[in-house]
């Protein structure tokens, strides 16, 4: 066996196969969608995008994803802080259950939200608030699906935070809030920021959890990913590709920014 793998030929063919796989699976499809959406010229691309329903779907998605991200930034920062700084019963259990949204299929997540706050739920009976098929349900789905990002981004930074810096600040007579804003917050910020951006890019891409509970009313609760799905179903791949390219470009920019942020943090 060893002599078999010793030969240079093996090593070259492995390299070639791995890179063909990489290029074929990732790069070609992405190039493909960009070329497809411009294949009938730039005017038809703009036409596809300026469809009012497409525009509304994209704007709605950005708005709701921003709200979900803000919510997750707030509760994620709190939970990340509590899980690193405090000891309390049940801490380990909570820490393990945080990743649940990553492990649970998004379609199942959407289905559970439908059960919990939908028209036949106890919640609806008690409060009589229409959540499902309205914007709050979409935000709820986005919050659930992107819940772990900020916490997981923040935890390692908080764990590394040098206690002595903090203690030095106290010893030198700095107040609690001053220490927090001058020492602790700057340490936490890169983690919160990159977690929030990952959450945002995931939220604008989310489909499974949203499609079941948003009602998908064009112009009102139709988000971009569901709009794209609808265009594919109604045999308009060009229109689907145009909106996809817009969403992709936003996501790629966010990803690029996170990369920059992380590299800046290391230097």
């Amino acid at each position, binding site marked *: 066996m060893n002599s078999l793998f010793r030969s240079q030929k093996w090593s070259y063919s492995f390299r070639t196969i791995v890179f063909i796989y990489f290029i074929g699976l990732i790069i070609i499809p992405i190039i493909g969608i960009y070329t497809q959406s411009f294949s009938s010229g730039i005017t038809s691309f703009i036409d596809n995008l300026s469809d009012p329903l497409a525009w509304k779907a994209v704007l709605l998605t950005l708005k709701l994803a921003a709200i979900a991200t803000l919510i997750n930034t707030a509760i994620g920062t709190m939970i990340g802080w509590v899980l690193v700084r405090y000891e309390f019963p049940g801490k380990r259990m909570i820490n393990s259950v945080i990743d649940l949204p990553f492990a649970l299929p998004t379609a199942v997540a959407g289905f559970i939200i439908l059960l919990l706050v939908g028209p036949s739920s106890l919640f609806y009976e008690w409060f009589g608030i229409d959540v499902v098929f309205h914007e709050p349900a979409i935000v709820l789905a986005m919050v659930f699906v992107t819940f772990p990002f900020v916490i997981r981004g923040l935890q390692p930074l908080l764990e590394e935070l040098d206690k002595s810096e903090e203690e030095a600040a106290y010893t030198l007579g700095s107040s609690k809030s001053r220490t927090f804003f001058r020492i602790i917050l700057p340490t936490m910020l890169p983690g919160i920021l990159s977690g929030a951006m990952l959450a945002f890019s995931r939220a604008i891409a989310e489909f499974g959890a949203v499609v079941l509970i948003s009602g998908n009313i064009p112009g009102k609760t139709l988000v971009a*990913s569901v709009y794209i799905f609808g265009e594919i179903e109604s045999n308009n791949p060009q229109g689907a590709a145009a909106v996809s390219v817009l969403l*992709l470009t936003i996501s790629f920019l966010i990803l690029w920014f996170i990369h920059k942020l992380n590299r800046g943090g290391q230097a």
Partner: protein
Amino acid sequence: MMMRRLWITLTYIVVSLLLLLPLYKIFTGAWADGLSGFMDALLRAQSLHALKMTALIVIIVTVINTLFGVMLSIYLVRATWLSPLVKRLSNSIVDLPFAVSPVIGGLMIVLLLGPNTVLGTMLGNVGVSIVYALPGMVLATLFVTFPIMVREVMPVLQEIGDQQEQAASTLGAYSWYTFWKVTWPNIRFAVMYGVVLTVARSLGEFGAVLVVSGNIINKTQTATTLVYQDVENFNVVAANGIALVLAAFSIMLLLLMEWTKKRKEVH
């Protein structure tokens, strides 16, 4: 002290409402029509077929992406035959599927290999169908899950450095042997963690598979797309049965994630 108790209580409330309550709901809801209702939902022909399809996709995707992911990671960290620029560029490109909405991932495959495309027609003439068939579904899931393994393995390879490996090769060990005896023991828990995450993600993949598969009952339907269809048909109990099976798997994977994460940190 007051603040501290407040934060811990708030954490408990958020985690209970957002994570534990949904879990509770899914585990009780499936029994709404008693055990027989649950079994009926699960033993329908389309349920069994959908679960089989999901299992098949999970296995194929995990095997392929583990192999290619580990090899690409080794190349991107160790290879001397790649220029730093290519390495850095590839390193960024690996992450792109994370930023792509699953629906868009599916659309890319339809646009490249669908029945109306050049490649799709060529393959169709030879009798190979990709879209609306298993190969397309596997391809879509491969695309979506590709970055996971690379992201887990690369940091470990970077951290352990190549001193041990170089020592082994200087002492005359062949590269394959060096891999098994020196590299593998260091990265195995990272690989295992990557495998668990890949399984979780491919088990739950919905958007990309829905677009590519056409969701044809007893042919290309997976467990998640069946949940979707059951909900659309107002068959809530049936949807809950499948959702419960998926959720049970997710929790198993979550526990495995915890376990491997701890192992990973020891090394």
